[in-house]
């Protein structure tokens, strides 16, 4: 301890304190503040850049997700439209078939009816003509043979019977 006190130099202490305090003040102004500020600024910019990158990545991901959703929707829409079209086609075809069948049936029925009526008319006419013809024939035949009333009646009923059979 004695040696320590003996070694202690007031002059050295004075200069050390003076120089050191000056050094702190000077370095604070010209070195530490600018350096620490620059380091801070850089750290902040790095952090900012990292955050921006992270944000961009997130945006990208969400964009991709929304893209996919849109795609999916579009695909569904297409399916739906296609299905609708298919259904419509089917129903149209079915309807057309149905109406065609109905029309055909109607036409056939009409044709049948016409045929029937024509046939009836034809038969009637044929009958009439046959009757007329037979009457004419009969007239001619009868003109010669059926001079008597009995014979005539006999002849007529015989003919009617024949006709009925017919």
């Amino acid at each position, binding site marked *: 301890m004695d040696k*320590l006190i003996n*070694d*202690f*130099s*007031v*002059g*050295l*202490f*004075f*200069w*050390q*304190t003076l*120089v*050191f*305090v*000056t*050094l*702190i003040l*000077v*370095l*604070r102004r*010209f*070195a*530490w*503040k*600018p*350096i*620490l500020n*620059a*380091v801070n*600024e*850089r750290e902040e*910019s790095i952090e900012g850049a990292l955050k921006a990158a992270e944000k961009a990545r997130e945006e990208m991901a969400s964009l991709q997700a929304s893209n996919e959703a849109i795609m999916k929707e579009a695909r569904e829409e297409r399916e739906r439209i296609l299905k609708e079209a298919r259904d419509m086609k089917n129903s149209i075809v079915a309807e057309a078939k149905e109406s065609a069948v109905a029309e055909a049936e109607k036409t056939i029925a009409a044709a049948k009816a016409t045929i029937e009526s024509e046939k009836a008319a034809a038969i009637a006419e044929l009958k009439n003509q046959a009757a007329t013809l037979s009457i004419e024939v009969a007239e001619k035949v009868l003109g010669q043979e059926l001079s008597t009333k009995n014979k005539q009646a006999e002849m007529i009923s015989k003919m009617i019977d024949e006709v009925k059979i017919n």
Partner: protein
Amino acid sequence: MITKFNTFWAFLGLLFVTSSAVAQDHGHEVHKEAAHHEEVAHDDSHHATALHEEDSETDIKAVIKETIDHHLADSYDFHITDGIGFPLPVILFDNGLKVFSSSKFHHGHEVASVDGDNYVLYHGKIYKALSTDIHTALDYDDHHHVTNEKPLDFSITKNVFMILVMAIFMFFLFSGIAKSYKTSLKPQKAGKFLEPIIIYVRDEIAIPNIGEKHYKKYMSYLLTVFFFIWFLNLAGMTPLGINVTGNIAITFSLALMTFIITQVSGKKDYWMHIFWMPGVPVVLKPVMAIIELIGLFVKPFSLMIRLYANMLAGHVVLMSIIGLIFVFGKWVISPAFFGLTLVLSLLELLVAALQAYIFTMLAALYFGSAVEEHDHH
């Protein structure tokens, strides 16, 4: 990889140059002194040869001890090696300001007369001379201690000179780094190496010990103190014989500044913990106050002694081992001591950084305790 290698070899080379230069420097002195002694011994015909050799060996030891003491002590001139060096200005406050070159002392062989006052340099200290004759200038007491009056001494000694050089060096180094950030935020040149250390001081020393809220205002002090101690410790590893951080006045000044900053920034909680410790029975509170009050002064005192003792011890050990090379000069084991010096130099390089770290760390811890705010009351 290449840069790493270059740095490594440069470092190793520097270490070699350093160690060998130290060895040479002191070797010269030792040999010279030893030779001088032998001459004296030869003149004295009464000495037997055996006695002479033994005497010579103890004398080498004495010379080594003196060389170490000389190396550790402050000095009024900057001595590099034999015949190379320069005198430094002496500034005394004694009947007014007196400024003169230390060369006037002629290394203590002559009395310096300045403006009618006479001064003499004796064992690294300036005394008022009693006469202009060197032989009668000093007055001794029974224990061979000088009783002369000492003038108020504000000389630019070797240590003061080194502090000034270091301050200028640090100014240019760090303001240069600061300027380089103006062009680019990327660290350049010295900044590449020193910036991580600055960030380390901030992130590992200041913020954990002081806290995110208050650390900023202490950064200037912590950074300055860290680099100042570290660089001066490293300067002490050069063969220039510099021992600034191993000087009690320097460490006292640093510890005192730490003490003052701590007390000035002490908040209510800090003083409360010293004078009226919460959570302790009332009877014990005065006792705690006494203990805390002692602790208040012990803390900076330990800072002062730790740095001083570590650096001083490092120098003493290194130089003693270098001295052993000359004690065992004739033997083959000298190279072994050289190797030991190299290994210890490496250790001292570590200690140089470690002591700077410890001082800064503890200073930050004390500042932290001063500004700490407790939530529990």
